[in-house]
């Protein structure tokens, strides 16, 4: 085995020969392999029903693979639950808890003294533009704000690897655009590793370092070589448009 050196090549997540099937005859994944390096933003795109969410459930440990290995931070631990931060498709904020209490939920579950951490949570709330609504309940927030609260809750798990399952899927295009520039601006200082599910090609190219295209039978990898820090305006640049066209062609071939 070759020893890998340097922060950028530390494997945060590596999946090898993963096979999984709900029914034995129709496997969703057949021997797929992928990895995510520390500090990377990687997207998974694929048509609905291609098993994106199932992939996430396997990584989080909610499901166990039939065959293959899932290593988090280089370790293949038996129970993966509680090892990565997971943000589901729906925001799943608890309606009876304030923004502050919702964000503090992972700390409570990890039996940390959440009272002691309140100054730290407040700092995060300010950074996320949520300081004014810390006492508000989820039903009093806009859709974009709710997603931000859910994202912050995922960050508060303290895990380095975050799995985000279509976090902006339910937002209108204007709000989505705002969330993109907000996230791109924040990305540098977040120091997290993200695996991101989406079916929005533009979003995938704009946010990611690499894209995995999850097809019927294969997994294709695409590098996005756009420099960081990025600005949402780059979607109008010819380089971006070319990339998008290329990606669309790949998806067409896939189906």
């Amino acid at each position: 085995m070759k020893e890998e050196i340097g922060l950028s090549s530390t494997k945060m997540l590596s999946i090898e020969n993963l096979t999984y099937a709900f029914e034995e005859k129709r496997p969703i994944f057949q021997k797929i392999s992928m990895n995510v390096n520390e500090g990377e933003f990687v997207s998974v795109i694929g048509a609905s029903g291609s098993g994106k969410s199932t992939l996430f459930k396997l990584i989080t440990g909610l499901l166990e693979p039939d065959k293959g290995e899932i290593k988090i931070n280089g370790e293949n631990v038996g129970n993966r639950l509680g090892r990565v931060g997971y943000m589901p498709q729906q925001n799943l904020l608890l309606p009876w808890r304030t923004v502050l209490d919702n964000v503090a939920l992972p700390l409570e579950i990890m039996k940390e003294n959440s009272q002691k951490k309140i100054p730290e949570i407040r700092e995060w709330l300010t950074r996320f533009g949520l300081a004014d609504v810390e006492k508000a309940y989820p039903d009093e927030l806009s859709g974009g704000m709710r997603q931000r609260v859910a994202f912050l809750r995922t960050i508060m798990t303290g895990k380095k690897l975050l799995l985000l399952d279509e976090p902006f899927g339910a937002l209108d295009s204007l709000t989505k655009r705002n969330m993109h520039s907000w996230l791109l601006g924040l990305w540098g200082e977040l120091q997290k590793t993200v695996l991101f599910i989406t079916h929005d090609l533009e979003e995938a190219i704009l946010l990611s370092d690499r894209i995995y295209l999850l097809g019927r039978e294969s997994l294709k990898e695409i590098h996005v070589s756009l420099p960081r820090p990025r600005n949402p305006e780059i979607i109008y640049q010819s380089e971006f448009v070319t990339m998008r066209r290329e990606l669309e062609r790949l998806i067409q071939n896939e189906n």
Partner: protein
Amino acid sequence: MKIKWKKWQGDYGLFLLATILIVSGWEWVVKKGLIPAFILPSPSEIVASLIENRQLLLENHLPATLQEVLIGFGISLAGGLLIGIGMHFSRALEKVLYPFLVISQTIPMIAISPIFIMWFGYSIWSKIAVTILIAIFPIVVSTYDGLKAGGKEYRELLLTMGANRWTIFNKIQLPMALPSILSGLKMSVVYCVVGATIGEWLGASVGLGYFSRRMSGNLQADAVFAAIFLLSFMGIVLFLLISLIEKQLLKNINRN
């Protein structure tokens, strides 16, 4: 103030109007002699009987029945929650207890009550036993179903945060089950009044059920109706009390 009155009028105005019409019609029919008073006493006679027997009713019989209802409800509440939660956590317990619970509801209460008299004698406990047998069922079912309904997605989210079963129960399932549990409690508390009354009918020396039975033996329909009125009033007050608690508890849970 004016707006409140308007709202109150909108909520209860029609009911009040209907009540006044029915009671007046009833009074008129009886006073006219269309129905003999020993079969259906007039409302005014019932009120007169209530006033006449007020000391006996309010100082002896009402407190006795209320005591049975409250003790029966307390035990049903504790037992019902415990069984409901136990069935939620243990598949085996659910498989054993659920059929028994359903069977317990198919037993005609009147038929089994004499057995309770045999076991517990004429003490307060024979009435409480009948009360519990009726009142525990809605609490168990509403607790168990409420806990089961508590969102699979939420459960999975908390699992990925490393939560154990108890934490999931505590942070998600119990709060989400509260609306269902409280509906069960509202039904249960009304059943408690029914249970205590049945218990008293079968053998007691005090209580509104006992009083109404004795009076019906004497063909004093007005006194029977007076006792029924008090029993129903008790049920309404208890129901409203639970509704009030419900409103407080669910203030934030019912957001969304």
